[in-house]
């Protein structure tokens, strides 16, 4: 019969393993700082889990992490990740963990050679019967490429040392099936940051999460409120961190968590190779997205950036394109402006349109030769391969400081502008002849903090429609 531990509930961050940026050696001081950072909010910590890059750690390193954690956590608990693809290695790690003072071990489904059910069972059986330490089973098909079979868990739950299962699959049908068959014998912990509330409501005992080292206090509150039956409040709390949790789960894992920790002043260095700090599984655009989400949570101080929307006479706003009011009048260029939205979602578009033979044609060609860092002009497209007509350049008025900001311009802003142009053409607001004969340049002012892509799309569409209607109004 499995045993329940009296302490296996609550919040357990799956700690990253800090490395020195140059040598890739474990940075022990950074590890201690990380543990002290999370300790007030958690019930224990997990060393060398998936987030801790365990497959890249030596046996000696994993033992050292347990020792450090033991020294730092005081009365709280240390769960030692003891994952390996082979049974002998897992046994050795489990023995080390016990000697180094771990309170329990976390053992992942054996991976790489895809053992069968009976081989998987024997793996866990050997560890649970040969090393006397509480054992938590660990299902994470995203990296193991196999699900820990429920019928194997059912039998393992009868072993005295097997005390729990961590389910990182995010597959609630699996979680509920495990609860159904073993919930009376062992504790189930959720390991997928995106489904915490649902899993807690379904009856899991706690959580082992990567994100619990970035916002442990939020998970603490979510946990408490679900237990008190205050689900509305718990949902609202989880919604605040849903996007970040999704990024941690699906867009870079431990790498993304490390990026976040480095941003909030808990330096943990880079991952070990072949993983890249950014530009691999964690793309630069998403890294910038993490930064903004952390600002929203108040984890990073947000720089106030008052921005100025272009004002004054419309015809004087195109000086950067070498289009003076006189030239605009002399060549009969069409102008329009539109704005929409409030606060950081406010956008303003100033548009100039006219025939290719006018100085606007020269301005158009010149812009594509003029890469001004952060203010690159791009051809407006509905999607790659669907260039709008009249050919239109989209030019941000404010410098784009990172790829996320650039992404807001060259993503939702561009898509909405493109749609507005094609709609206006189909509605006859822009005459068909203009499709070949004209070009347009649109100066777009989008707040650097704009985050809501859907709102941005809507506002740009509305502003663009107004600007186009003004420019192509029949009575000019």
């Amino acid at each position: 019969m499995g045993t329940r531990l009296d302490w296996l509930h609550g919040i357990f961050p799956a700690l990253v393993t800090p490395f020195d940026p140059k040598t890739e050696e474990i940075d022990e001081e950074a590890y201690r700082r990380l543990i002290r950072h999370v300790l007030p909010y958690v019930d224990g910590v997990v060393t060398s889990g998936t987030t801790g890059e365990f497959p890249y750690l030596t046996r000696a390193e994993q033992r050292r992490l347990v020792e450090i954690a033991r020294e730092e956590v005081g009365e709280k608990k240390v769960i030692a990740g003891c994952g390996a693809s082979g049974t002998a290695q897992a046994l050795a790690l489990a023995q080390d963990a016990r000697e180094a003072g771990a309170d329990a071990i976390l053992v992942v489904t054996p991976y790489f050679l895809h053992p069968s059910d009976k081989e998987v069972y024997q793996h866990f059986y050997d560890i649970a019967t040969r090393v006397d330490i509480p054992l938590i089973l660990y299902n994470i098909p995203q990296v193991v490429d196999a699900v820990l079979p429920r019928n194997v868990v059912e039998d393992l739950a009868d072993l005295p040392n097997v005390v729990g299962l961590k389910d990182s699959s995010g597959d609630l049908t699996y979680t509920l099936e495990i609860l159904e068959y073993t919930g009376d014998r062992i504790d189930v912990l959720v390991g997928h940051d995106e489904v915490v509330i649902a899993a807690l409501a379904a009856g899991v005992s706690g959580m082992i999460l990567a994100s619990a080292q970035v916002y442990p206090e939020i998970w603490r509150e979510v946990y408490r409120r679900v237990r008190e039956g205050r689900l509305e409040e718990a949902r609202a709390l989880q919604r605040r961190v849903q996007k970040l949790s999704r990024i941690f789960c699906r867009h870079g894992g431990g790498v993304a968590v490390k990026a976040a920790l480095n941003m909030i002043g808990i330096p943990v260095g880079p991952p070990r190779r072949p993983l890249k700090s950014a530009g691999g599984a964690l793309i630069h655009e998403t890294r910038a997205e993490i930064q903004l989400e952390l600002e929203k949570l108040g984890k990073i101080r947000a720089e106030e950036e008052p921005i100025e929307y272009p004002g004054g006479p419309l015809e004087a706003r195109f000086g950067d394109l070498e289009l003076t009011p006189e030239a605009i009048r002399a060549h009969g260029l069409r102008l329009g402006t539109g704005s929409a939205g409030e606060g950081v979602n406010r956008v303003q578009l100033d548009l100039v349109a006219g025939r290719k033979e006018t100085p606007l044609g020269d301005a158009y060609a010149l812009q594509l030769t003029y890469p001004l860092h952060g203010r690159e002009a791009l051809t407006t497209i509905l999607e790659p391969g669907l260039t709008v007509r009249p050919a239109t350049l989209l030019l941000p008025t404010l410098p784009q400081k990172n790829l996320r900001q650039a992404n807001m311009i060259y993503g939702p802003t561009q898509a909405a502008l493109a749609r507005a142009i094609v709609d206006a053409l189909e509605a006859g607001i822009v005459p068909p002849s203009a499709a070949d004969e004209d070009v347009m340049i649109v100066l777009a002012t989008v707040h650097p903090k704009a985050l809501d892509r859907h709102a941005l799309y809507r506002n740009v569409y509305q502003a663009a429609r107004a600007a186009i209607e003004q420019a192509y109004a029949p009575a000019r």
Partner: protein
Amino acid sequence: MGYKTDWFRGIYPALVTPFTRDDRLDEEAYRRLIRYVLPHVNGVVPCGTTGEFSYMTLEERQRAIEVCLDEVNGRAPVLAGTGCPSTRETIQLTRWARDAGVTGVLVVAPYYLKPTFNEVYDHFRALDSLGVPIVIYNIPQCAGTHFRWWTAEGMLLDLENVVGIKDSSGDVPFLEALFEKVKGQVGIFVGHDEIVQAALAAGCDGAILASANLIPDIWQTIYRATLEGDLATAQEWQAKIQKLVRIVATCGPTQAVKEGLEMIGIPVGVSRHPILRGGSFRREDYEELRMQLEILGKIPQAEVVYDLGGRQVTTRVAATPHTPRHVSGWTLRVGEGFAGPPFHEIAHVDLLIGRRDGPVGRAVARAMEGWGGERGLRIISERPLILLVPTVTLRTARQRQLFYDFAAEGILMAVRQNIENGFLPEAALDDLALIVNAFVHPAASIGRRVMLNNYKATVQALRKAIEGRPTLEQLFEERASARHPFRYAP
């Protein structure tokens, strides 16, 4: 006990079903298509997967099969697709086809509700009583069920009227198991265009192929060379068409084949919805398919006049119905191209082409007199004059290497190729200037992919600028379905 027939061998195109603009069966186009393929093939398949059988009513399938039978007129076997999700409808259509005089029927594994092996077996057993030769059809990528070799073996050897199997899975171990179990007793056809030469060499009796609508003659060459034991010739041809058939097999075969046929002058309309232009068969796939057909000499040549403002240049190019025969407006023509994956090695090219004495030429001159050097601009060709501009500021030595060595080489490859094929006519090179603004992601790694993606993106951008694509009609048709890749949150 199944048996092996003489007629079930060789190359069979899985005919597309032409539709008119108002979405009815286009019988005339269907007949033209059959006349185009018939001299090169051993049989035809109306209403297969490529024929969009799953989007057609039973009546429409019957009519298509009738037209096919009439046009073929006994000159080749007609193997009609009669599979439906339910046994009841499959029997109904198969009985009709038998009475209409088809040579055999091609029956797909019953799909969608995922019947178990014994249910699939009994489905075919029920058909067996109709007395018409049956080819069972394994296509797990669409049907969602994959025969195991033991199921196939049972159906092939137990049922009296089964004459063979078509396997479109591309799963070579499965094919090898079939050779082991049933070779010589029934016909074994491959249906996956990418592995045909290997499958024929390994022992397949023939192939039923989507791409055999487009290149029936080349498939016949490969088939015959293999029969004669000339593997070198067969391999050489398969390698020549590999890119083409990969596009057809993996990028939405119905639309790919239909747009390909349009390019070579056999208009058959478009696929039925939900399949769209620019959907699974993406715009970049269109351009690549076109280039492959062009290289194989399948796209007819036409004269095109470039009106360069006071001077006309005539050129001969491989022209599709969308290539204008007269191109003016060389003040400024705009084209854009995109190619990927992988993500970090995508290429996005904004291209301007125009007269040297117009806005493009003037901009090139001003840029090089002014900020060109300090901002990393380079003239990479004098004839035509080409200014290469990095979209994103190059910060590291690696980024500069990827941009100037790899991206630039890809762009030049595209230009050289289009000089050779006439889209950039020699006589116009002194008049023309280009600005190529190319995006290389700061985190790009794989140089060769950067080069090839920039080559592809530049071909697209150049052709689109010259031909004035996308057309307004296309923009209006696709504006609602457009999915901008950077529009959504992570």
